Every structure is written in structure tokens, then in C-alpha cells.
């Protein structure tokens, strides 16, 4: 691509290489009123890529609920912002870096983490927690261990250096990700509610300022790559993966926050996908102004760079700002102190056009609104996913003992401990980590207060695959539940929609269904979407991933003196199940792992029951009646209790019900449920009764094993070895 210069003729092949179809190119000609030059064509290409324009998804994203009294900023900015009281705000978003991470796992994942942190501190927030939602191919696929190892190192390499604790996340393995892994990174930041920074440019004549790293040739056409399917030659796209420099980003963070404490910034936008192009167009479009950019003033890392490359580079650790007039010197002094580049590279105009200057000559001249706002929007044809039948719990008879099933499940790739991953992340830096990884949600203290912010990422792709609407609901409900289980009030979500090729009606139907389910759950649980990201074309050689709408949830604990963790703390506690058991084995891990069947309707989500149970559990924790709580998710009741025993190093004895399927009772993945430990079961049962929430004593804590009705049992030591052993030995074998 570096051979491209100003006079490159625009041929149909070149248009096609830029990812524009005939219809789109005709629209380009109409908007321009002439043939574009190469620089202009490159800009249209990235601005109208799926990644930047959301052209396939926009129609459906608009249907998601985004409002609540506590929402300060919903989707459309760099990140969402919610009010957390006391004049403070939480700023958060989740974003994918799937394609780059598959091609180059370390740098792909690292720059994903760097990018999402930049989105958050662009808004004026200091990042205080990172999370990540990862999906890899099946464990015995030859690429899986290499990708896992590289991604985890990349996430750690960037986040650890930035000094932001990585407090949670999730990891799945499934064959559908063999050729297309998912790396979704989430950052939560803390800001003063009255000092949030936005991207709308304003003030004709105000300087446009570039800060951060110099621009190189890395990542050119990254956004276009992220908008196409993969094939066997995709590895050749390695040069389009950006290289991260967390040290520079740490300096950029400190310099930006120092500048934001003054009153010099009018607007600020990070240079993420499509770099200088999308940042300048977005700022101008939102502000209704024009921009003249002097591209020869852009700090450059390499010699001989062209306007085309400067506009399309995705070099990392860069920001674009509009400053108040006359502030240039004072602002520059801050960036000088942090040894970062600072350059005035343009000016705001009243033309509503983007004029690119190169040593005084015009290198491009485009209207801003038609590109940024009037980009194509498609109503792609879609087919609903056919419903599957519910699995009759009585049709499954136990082939192995329940304890043997537990032992198999807890050592399986789906449920084995992720300690190998999260011990490579600094989850303690900043000194405010209250609930560490390995529980339901991570919790960090708001510095200097007794308030906590809880955060989690959740999605059960096999449910979404089987029934996108129920699966979409479930992802939101599980995020809600994981926050509640720590004692937090769930406030809002960010969604990271990972799907296959939207040009296939079946895939588009998954997207539409998931949006519907997410929307319904958000409304019922008062848990709006405030930010998000869409990643489509997650396919390799025509094989799509399972639909994976990863949900990042954020909530607040008003008094950290009353919060809960999953580990059983006292051996004289009763174990109570909150929420009704209905015996849902469809798409369960028991069915998959023990029976070898991935089928059936996933567990339905009763959103009203979910809300009632969640409110009750949170109140019990707030009252100080409950300090131990774990939601029932993958694997069902027995796995949940075993995890609580392992975390607290105290055993338990579970009672079986007098009637009904034992397998469904122990391993069903019915939604809307929690297990709590309490020494005051009557109070809890009474409170549940008056809240119209099902609650039943399911067993007793104590001893050093997990037992069923005092008989069939497994020692905690053996269980721990099974649970902790899988991933380290899997990774150790893979190295050899």
C-alpha cells in the first residue's frame, strides 16, 4: 500500500480493494460530485467500513433501551457514563479486538486493552478496573494454547504496565471459535460527574491539536480488515495489526488527566480504529463544524509518509483535541513534561468540510456530514432461529454417580479454574481491589470512600446459538445476577456484539434476536445499555462463531462493610437456594460433558422473577444478613456449591429433593437463582416469603468434602486438584 501516492488512478479494482461495493461507490460519486482522489477514497473506505459505520447493525442497536435517571451519557460517545452518587461518575465500555488477536495474539490483545482504556480516559475518567471476555477454540485444537498464551500475556503486558487492576472476566472454549477467537476488553473509569469530556468540536478558529505517539505505518486498513471474513491467507494481514506501547499510554493518561484538571479542552477524541480519519470526522460532525488539517505537521515516525497513510494509520497512543484559543503553550508544557509529542495540526472552520492540506496543497476536500452521519444503513434480510424442544428432565437418567459427574464437570475446560489466567494480571494495583477475580463480579473501592464499584462480563454463547432471544436475555440477566451476588445495585451495561457474517440471513437473525432479548432484559431489570461495540464477520472459511453478545455490567455497593463473596465463611451455616428450580437441562454443561449432547432449548429467563430475586438478595446483603452468595450458572447447583466450598475451604452436605429428577436438581441450569450461606435461615426464608421469592434450604456447610445426603462425596482436596489442575497442565503440555 505504501506505493500509493497522490496520482494513483481510481480503478474499479482499487475501489473493490477498499471494501466498497458498486452501490456504495456510486454514493461516493454522488456525494463528491466528482471522482474522489486516492486519499478521499481511503477515507470513504474506512468511514463506511462495518467497523466504523455500524451499517448492518445500526437499525437494531437503535431499539436498545439506553435511558435511566442515572445515565449521564448513553451510546454514541467514546464510552458510557453513569452517576454513582456523591458527584462521581463511572465511565465504561467494552470493545472487541478479535481479528487482530487471531493474527497476532500478543499485540492484538494488548492494543485492544490500550484502546479501550483510551476510550475511557478520553472522557476524563481515570481507569480503575479492567475486565476481559475471551473465547477460544476447543482445547485440543492445535492453535488454542498458543492463542490463549499470547492473548493473556498481551492483556497482562498492557494492563499491568498501565497500573490498572484486571479484576474479572470470563473464558470459554468451543470449536466454533477455532478459526476466529474473541477478545473483548472492558474498562471502568472514575470521573467527577461535572467534569466529563466530550468529542463535539466547537469554536471556529480553535486549534486542532495532536498529542501522544508519532504516527507510523502500522494498522493501515485495520478497520477494513475487521469488517471482512477470514480465510487461510489471513495471516498475511499481520502488518495491519498495530503494535502497542503501554509506557507511552501511561504517560498519555497522566498528561491528559493533568490537562483535564485545567480548563483548556473544548473537545477530545482518541484515535482508535481508522485513526486520524474517524477522530477528526467524528469531532467535526458532532460539532457541526469544518476542519482544515495540515497533515505535514503530524508527528511522523517514518520518513516518506503520504497523506493517505497519515489519514489511515492506526498507530496507537494518540489523541486529537480542540483547545480553547491561546491555551496552546500551557497545554504543550504539560505534554513536554511527560515527554510526549504535541502539535497543532489544524483549525476549525465554518465550511462543514474536511480539507486536507499537504505542504500548502489540497490533498483532499470532503463534505463531513454525508460521510459521518449519512453513511449507508442496511436493513439486511434475516431469518429467526428455529426453536428447539425443551429437554424433558425425566428423559435423562444418570449414567455416572452425581459426585463423579461433578468431578468431571469441574475439571472440564468449561468450568476449570481460570487462576492460570488471572494470576498473570495485576489485579491488586491501586490498592482498592476488594473482591478479586474468581468470584461472581470483581469489586474495587472508590478511592477515599467506603463505596465499591462492581463489574462483570457475561454471555453464554451456547444459549444464544440455540435461542438468540432467550440467550440475549440470559446474558443480561447473568450480568445482573453476578453484580447482585456481591451486594451491588446493578446500574447499566455495555454490550459487545460478536457475530458472524451479517449478509447471511441466519446470522442476521441471531443478531436481531439477541438485540430483542437484550432489550427486554434491560427494560425489565432497569439496566440500560450505555455503550457498546459490534464485531461482525467473525467467520473463517465460511464457518461462523456462536453468536456472542458479551455483556459488561456495572453496579455500585454503597457500603463496602456489607458486601458478599462466594467463599463459605463458617461451617455452621445453612445453605439456601434463592429462586425456583424448574429442571432445565437443555444446553446444560451436564448434557454436553456427561451425555455428549449440545442440544435442547436453553433455560428460559423469567425477568420478573429475576428482578424479585435480585432485589431480595441485594437487600439481604445490605442488611448484613448474608456475606456469602454465589449465583447458579454454568453447571448448575452442585457445581455452584462446590465452588463456594473451594473458595472458603469449608465443605458442604447437600440434600436431594424427595421427588423429581435428581440430575435436573443438581445440574439443571435454571435461571434466576443464587445460593447463599447464612446462620439465620429463618430470617432469610421469611424475607423471601414476603418478597414472593422461592427459597429453600438445600444443605448445610461443614466438613472437608462435598457430600450428597451424607453419602456419595468427594474431598475438597481432590476437588481442588481437579479444578485447579486442568489449565496449568493443559498449558504446560502445549508448550512441549
Amino acid at each position, binding site marked *: 500500500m505504501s506505493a500509493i501516492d497522490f496520482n494513483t488512478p481510481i480503478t474499479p479494482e482499487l475501489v473493490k480493494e477498499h471494501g466498497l461495493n458498486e452501490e456504495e461507490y456510486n454514493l461516493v460519486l454522488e456525494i463528491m460530485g466528482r471522482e474522489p482522489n486516492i486519499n478521499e477514497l481511503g477515507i470513504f473506505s474506512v468511514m463506511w467500513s462495518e467497523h466504523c459505520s455500524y451499517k448492518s447493525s445500526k437499525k437494531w442497536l437503535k431499539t436498545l433501551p439506553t435511558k435511566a435517571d442515572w445515565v449521564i451519557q448513553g451510546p454514541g460517545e467514546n464510552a458510557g457514563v453513569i452517576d454513582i452518587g456523591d458527584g462521581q461518575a463511572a465511565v465504561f465500555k467494552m470493545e472487541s479486538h478479535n481479528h487482530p488477536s487471531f493474527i497476532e495474539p500478543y499485540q492484538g490483545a494488548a492494543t485492544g486493552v490500550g484502546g479501550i482504556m483510551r476510550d475511557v480516559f478520553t472522557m476524563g475518567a481515570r481507569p480503575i478496573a479492567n475486565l476481559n471476555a475471551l473465547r477460544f477454540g476447543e482445547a485440543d485444537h492445535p492453535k488454542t494454547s498458543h492463542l490463549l498464551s499470547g492473548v493473556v*500475556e498481551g492483556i497482562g503486558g498492557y494492563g*499491568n504496565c498501565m497500573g490498572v487492576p484486571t479484576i474479572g472476566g470470563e473464558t470459554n472454549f468451543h470449536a466454533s471459535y477455532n478459526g476466529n477467537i474473541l477478545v473483548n476488553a472492558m474498562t471502568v473509569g472514575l470521573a467527577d460527574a461535572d467534569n466529563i469530556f466530550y468529542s463535539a468540536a466547537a469554536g471556529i478558529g480553535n486549534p486542532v491539536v495532536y498529542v501522544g505517539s508519532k504516527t507510523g505505518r502500522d494498522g493501515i486498513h485495520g478497520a477494513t480488515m475487521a469488517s471482512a471474513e477470514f480465510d487461510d491467507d489471513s495471516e498475511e494481514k499481520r502488518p495491519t495489526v498495530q503494535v502497542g506501547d503501554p509506557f507511552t499510554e*501511561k504517560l498519555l493518561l497522566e498528561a491528559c488527566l493533568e490537562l483535564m484538571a485545567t480548563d483548556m479542552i473544548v473537545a477530545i477524541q482518541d484515535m482508535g480504529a481508522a485513526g486520524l480519519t474517524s477522530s477528526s470526522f467524528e469531532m467535526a460532525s458532532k460539532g457541526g463544524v469544518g476542519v482544515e488539517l495540515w497533515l505535514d505537521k503530524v508527528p511522523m515516525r517514518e520518513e516518506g509518509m503520504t497523506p493517505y497513510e497519515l489519514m489511515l494509520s492506526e498507530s496507537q497512543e494518540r489523541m486529537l483535541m480542540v483547545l480553547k484559543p491561546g491555551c496552546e503553550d500551557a497545554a504543550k508544557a504539560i505534554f513536554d513534561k511527560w515527554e510526549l509529542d504535541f502539535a497543532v495540526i489544524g483549525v476549525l472552520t465554518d465550511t462543514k468540510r474536511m480539507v486536507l492540506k499537504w505542504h500548502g496543497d489540497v490533498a483532499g476536500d470532503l463534505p463531513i456530514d454525508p460521510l459521518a452521519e449519512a453513511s449507508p444503513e442496511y436493513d439486511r434480510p434475516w431469518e429467526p432461529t428455529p426453536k428447539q424442544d425443551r429437554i424433558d428432565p425425566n428423559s435423562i437418567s444418570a449414567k455416572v454417580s452425581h459426585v463423579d459427574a461433578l468431578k468431571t464437570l469441574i475439571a472440564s475446560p468449561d468450568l476449570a479454574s481460570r487462576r492460570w489466567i*488471572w*494470576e*498473570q494480571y495485576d*489485579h*491488586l494495583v491501586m*490498592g482498592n481491589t476488594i473482591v478479586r477475580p474468581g468470584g461472581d463480579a470483581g469489586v474495587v473501592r472508590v478511592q477515599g470512600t467506603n463505596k465499591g464499584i462492581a463489574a462483570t462480563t457475561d454471555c453464554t454463547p451456547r444459549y444464544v446459538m440455540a435461542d438468540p432471544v432467550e440467550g440475549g436475555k440470559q446474558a443480561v440477566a447473568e450480568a445482573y445476577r453476578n453484580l447482585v451476588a456481591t451486594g451491588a445495585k446493578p446500574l447499566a451495561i455495555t454490550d459487545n456484539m460478536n457475530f458472524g457474517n451479517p449478509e447471511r440471513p441466519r446470522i442476521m437473525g441471531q443478531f436481531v434476536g439477541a438485540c430483542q432479548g437484550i432489550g427486554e432484559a434491560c427494560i425489565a431489570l432497569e439496566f440500560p445499555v450505555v455503550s457498546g461495540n459490534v464485531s461482525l464477520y467473525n467467520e473463517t472459511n465460511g464457518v461462523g462463531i456462536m453468536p456472542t453478545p458479551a455483556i459488561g455490567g456495572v453496579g455500585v455497593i454503597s457500603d463496602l462493610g456489607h458486601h458478599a463473596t462466594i467463599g463459605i465463611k463458617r461451617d455452621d451455616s445453612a445453605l439456601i437456594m434463592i429462586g425456583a428450580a424448574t429442571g432445565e437441562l437443555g444446553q446444560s454443561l451436564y448434557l454436553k460433558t456427561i451425555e455428549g449432547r449440545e442440544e435442547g432449548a436453553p433455560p428460559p429467563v423469567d425477568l420478573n422473577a429475576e428482578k424479585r430475586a435480585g432485589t431480595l438478595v441485594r437487600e439481604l446483603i445490605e442488611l448484613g444478613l448474608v456475606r456469602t452468595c454465589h449465583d447458579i450458572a454454568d453447571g448448575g447447583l452442585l457445581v455452584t456449591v462446590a465452588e463456594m466450598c473451594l473458595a472458603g475451604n469449608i465443605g458442604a452436605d447437600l440434600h436431594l429433593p424427595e421427588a423429581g429428577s435428581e440430575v435436573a436438581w443438581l445440574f439443571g441450569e435454571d435461571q434466576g437463582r443464587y445460593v447463599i450461606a447464612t446462620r439465620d435461615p429463618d430470617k432469610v426464608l421469611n424475607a423471601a416469603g414476603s418478597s414472593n421469592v422461592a427459597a429453600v434450604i438445600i444443605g448445610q456447610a461443614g466438613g472437608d468434602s462435598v457430600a450428597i445426603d451424607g453419602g456419595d462425596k468427594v474431598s475438597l482436596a481432590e476437588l481442588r486438584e481437579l479444578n485447579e489442575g486442568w489449565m496449568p497442565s493443559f498449558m504446560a503440555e502445549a508448550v512441549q
Partner: protein
Amino acid sequence: MKSAVILFPGINRENDAIAALEQATGTKPVVVWHGETELPKTDIIMVPGGFSYGDYLRCGAMAAKSPIMRAVAERAKAGVTILGVCNGFQILTEAGLLPGALMRNASLKFICKNTHLKIENADTRFTNQYQAGDVVDYPVAHHDGNFFADSETLDRLEGEGRVILRYCDANGVVDPATNLNGSQRNIAGIINEAGNVLGMMPHPENAIDPLHGGTDGRNLFKSLVEAAS
């Protein structure tokens, strides 16, 4: 009681250090930027953890050449209490204020977890609130904590009681199985010859609040205050 925290570009545990020093001394420490050449007069100087200069070249190597380090070396010579934690330990070894070097962990991976440590010498200004043989629990968070020195230096450190902390298990057993990162003789922290400079990989500043899950680190900071008052 006055204290100072030195800030290099890329340091990221300065606020954790500030919180611990403020809790122990009752006063917020002064933060000194690496480009300064003079230090305010303080009783305690702490070089906190992080990734100074991105750990590029070698952990701590570039920070050790910063202007402020000349002033830190002078204070070390004058007997002021200096505590280097994690990257701070690496910087102090690179600056020649402590012997040895910190190499990549034997596992080749970053390790963040709680670990048991044995207090080997309680007769120092850093450990006077502990008893020799105490087992404490602090977190670690590092990629390069594998302490190395030649055997002559190690023998000398041992002989002079300058090994302060060793990785061990809950019962204080020090052996290869309890060696977190491959350090020579399980060494987690050492002092200089004069006894006023301590470098250690673990983070006592992240174990000072019940909400951290433990408060074993408090006594280290209390010791500094006790010794300086």
C-alpha cells in the same frame, strides 16, 4: 514524621505507597518528580512499584540514571531510611544502592498472588514490629522478581543478617517448592550494609486494610515510624 515518594514516568503504585505511608505516619508524603535534583528533608524515602520507563532496556535501569537518584544516593549515604518495593527494588539495585539483580521469574510469567514470607531478621528499622521467624502474608505482582547474586555476595548477605524476607509456605518452610519466582535462596528482600536501605519484591502496601483481605503489611510501615521517631 515526614516521608517522600519518588515518581518516575511509568511508576504506577505510587498511590498505594502514599496510602500506606500516610496511614503509618499520619501525614501525606511529598511526591518528588524524577527530574528534580533536590529532595525535601524527610525521615523516609520510598521508591514505589510500577514499570518505570516501561521496563524497557532492563527493569529499573533507566530510572536509576534519573537526576533525582543522585540525591537519593546521598540520602542513603547519610543514613536516611529508604524503602524500594518491586520496581523500586529493581531501581535500587540498578543504582548500586543494593547488591544483586532481579531477573525474569523462573516461570517466565507475571505473577500476581498472595504469598507467605518469613521475617528473617526483626532487628532492623524495617521489621522491628515483627518477631524473627514470623510468617507474614503480602501480595506480589511482578514479572522480574527472581533475585540473583553470586554465591560470595549471598553468603555475605546471609552472614551479615541482611536477608530480611524469604518466600515460604504458611508454616514458614523455605524450600524450592515454596520459591515463588526462582530467587536465589528464596530471597524476597535484602538490606544494605548500613541497614538503612531495604529492597523487596512483595507489596506490604497492598496489605494494610481488612478490605485488602489482610493487614500484615502494616507492621512494616509501623517499624519505619518506630525507628525514625
